[in-house]
């Protein structure tokens, strides 16, 4: 087990009270695994991703456990967690256009990152390692003396990936790494990420709302809704045998290119306000299959045909 979260809660403190963005989730990543995390916007995916590195606002409340290898993350102070960031866990952000400092040369970003975690590193060594990792992501090493605005969107995301990999982390969190890129570049970047994950022997958490993307890459997929993980299954199971009503509706709403069926399908309603989530099952207000109990009591997680589902529809069913 590379990474594990147990009974993890991440709440934002606001004037109205706590926003329960991540509420009591269990999650794990095995060595070499790619775990997909999918769901609508506002379901707590990115909060979870950034919460692992604790780069959320300083007033954020954490409880439960998070372990990377055998280091417990929840109790760490800022100085201790800083040594984990970048070094053990690399992060790739959504928007490469804004995630690179525009007034700094690319090489400076690499050097300062290396220097922070390996204070004894020499200039030459840093240059060498930067060149090597840039080559791996398909950027000519001589371009390291350029500025980020001289690169295209796809190239910038390659730089971001290289920057996440330069310290050889054991886990990479990719937070919607291709959302802001065009389709062709998306495919290239995903292919690259997958190859590099194997080559560097890392594990990966892939956060996305693009179900097509995760299907190809992930070994396991967790579906998040309103701060809960509502279904956890292998990619195959999730696609061919989805259990949770939310997963089913999510899969149905993938747009297709069939000329006879161009109507966009969607799930009516919105994810709930997480400072005051619905009692019982959080999906119940939007669920077409809801029963009486759904609006009263939170469903337990049950295992059905190899998938873990948090839904009352299955709680009576034998394994």
């Amino acid at each position: 087990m590379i990474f594990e979260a147990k009974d993890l809660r991440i709440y934002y403190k606001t004037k109205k009270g706590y926003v329960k963005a991540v509420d009591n989730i269990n999650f794990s990543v095995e060595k070499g695994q790619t775990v997909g995390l999918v769901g609508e916007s506002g379901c707590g995916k990115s909060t979870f991703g950034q919460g692992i590195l604790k780069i959320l606002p300083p007033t954020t409340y954490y409880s439960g456990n998070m372990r990377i290898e055998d280091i417990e993350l929840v109790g760490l102070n800022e100085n201790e967690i800083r040594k984990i960031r970048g070094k053990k866990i690399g992060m790739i952000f959504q928007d490469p256009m804004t995630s690179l400092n525009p007034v700094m040369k690319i090489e400076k970003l690499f050097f300062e990152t290396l220097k922070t975690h390996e204070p004894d590193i020499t200039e030459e060594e840093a240059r060498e390692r930067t060149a090597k990792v840039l080559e791996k992501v398909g950027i000519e090493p001589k371009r390291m003396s350029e500025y980020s605005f001289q690169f295209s969107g796809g190239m910038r995301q390659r730089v971001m990936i290289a920057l996440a990999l330069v310290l050889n982390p054991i886990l990479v969190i990719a937070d919607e790494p291709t959302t802001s890129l065009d389709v062709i570049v998306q495919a290239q970047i995903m292919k690259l990420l997958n190859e590099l994950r194997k080559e560097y022997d890392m594990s990966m958490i892939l956060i996305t709302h693009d179900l097509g993307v995760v299907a190809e890459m992930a070994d396991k997929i967790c579906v998040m809704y309103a701060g809960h993980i509502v279904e956890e299954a292998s990619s195959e199971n999730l696609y061919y045998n989805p259990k949770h009503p939310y997963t089913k509706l999510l899969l149905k709403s993938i747009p297709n290119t069939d000329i006879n069926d161009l109507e966009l399908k969607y799930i009516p309603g919105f994810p709930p306000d997480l400072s005051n989530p619905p009692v019982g099952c959080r999906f119940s207000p939007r669920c077409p299959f809801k029963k009486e109990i759904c609006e009263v009591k939170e469903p337990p997680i049950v295992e059905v045909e190899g998938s873990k589902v948090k839904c009352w529809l299955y709680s009576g069913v034998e394994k």
Partner: protein
Amino acid sequence: MSLKSYIITRIILALPMILVLLILIFFILRIIPGDPVLAILGGKAPVEVIEAKRHELGLDKPIIIQFFDYLGDVAKGDLGVSTLTNRPVWNEIKDRFPATLELTIFAFIIALVIGIFWGAEAAWRKDKPLDISARVYSIFIYAIPVFWLGLMLQLLFGIYLRWLPVGGRLSPRVSLDIKTGLLLLDSLITWNWEAFWDVLKHLLLPGITLGLVISSIFLRMVRNNTVLMLSKDFVKAAKARGLKPRVILYGHAVRNAFVPIFTIMGMQFALLLAGAVLTETTFSWPGIGSYLVLKIKYRDFPAIQGAIIFFALFVVIISIIIDIVNALVDPRVRY
């Protein structure tokens, strides 16, 4: 566009501005009440003497002729002769300019130090006491008239505590070889420590007064821009790479915050000179600012015109320098 052609363009563009300024100041001076001849000779002088002086200064010619005469002289680089002292205006300005330069540089450094460090730390601790005090400070200082602040500092440090002199640049008993006119620099290069201390003591009060006034605007700009930058994605990304808080704050946020600040700073510099006029008068600092006030009192037309053109040129040159520094800080301007 290369830097060289950019600078040349900027200077050429400054010429029409200076011409308009010259026209305005020339005619306004002659419209407002007050007569240079009476100011020099006093109201009781006989009419013949007054007429003779008027003729001597060329003030009996039609205004339009006077204007083109003056314009022709300025084009040749001749700013005329002071009606009060009979010395060439250019020489007078040249003698007094180093004092203003020294004061503004000193004040600017004080403002930079206060603005950058307090502003950055306040942004880092947004809504905490250090930030709130920074906001209160900048509003408070901004609201205070410069000369009042100067008077209060004079009263406290000069009169009650008797730590610092309240005016001038150098005590009469101290001797100093003047080379550059920047007395702090002169005393340093001649290893004259006694003079150095004396100059520094004289510089402190006016420098701090002017420095505090500029620091209020500067602090606000640095603080607000840094707060904005700290919310940017690249700061979050830097944090996710495990960089130290100091590196994130000064290396990433403040550095980027300076890009918009530089573009405003050129305009702020004009304000700085206005502040310098008041500060110099309060501390009897022998610079261009107090020179201008003195000359206005005596309706010394050529001197006033000269000083104003000089100020305008100074602002243009400084804003060009600031643009160059900006290009060094922000590579996007360069490419």
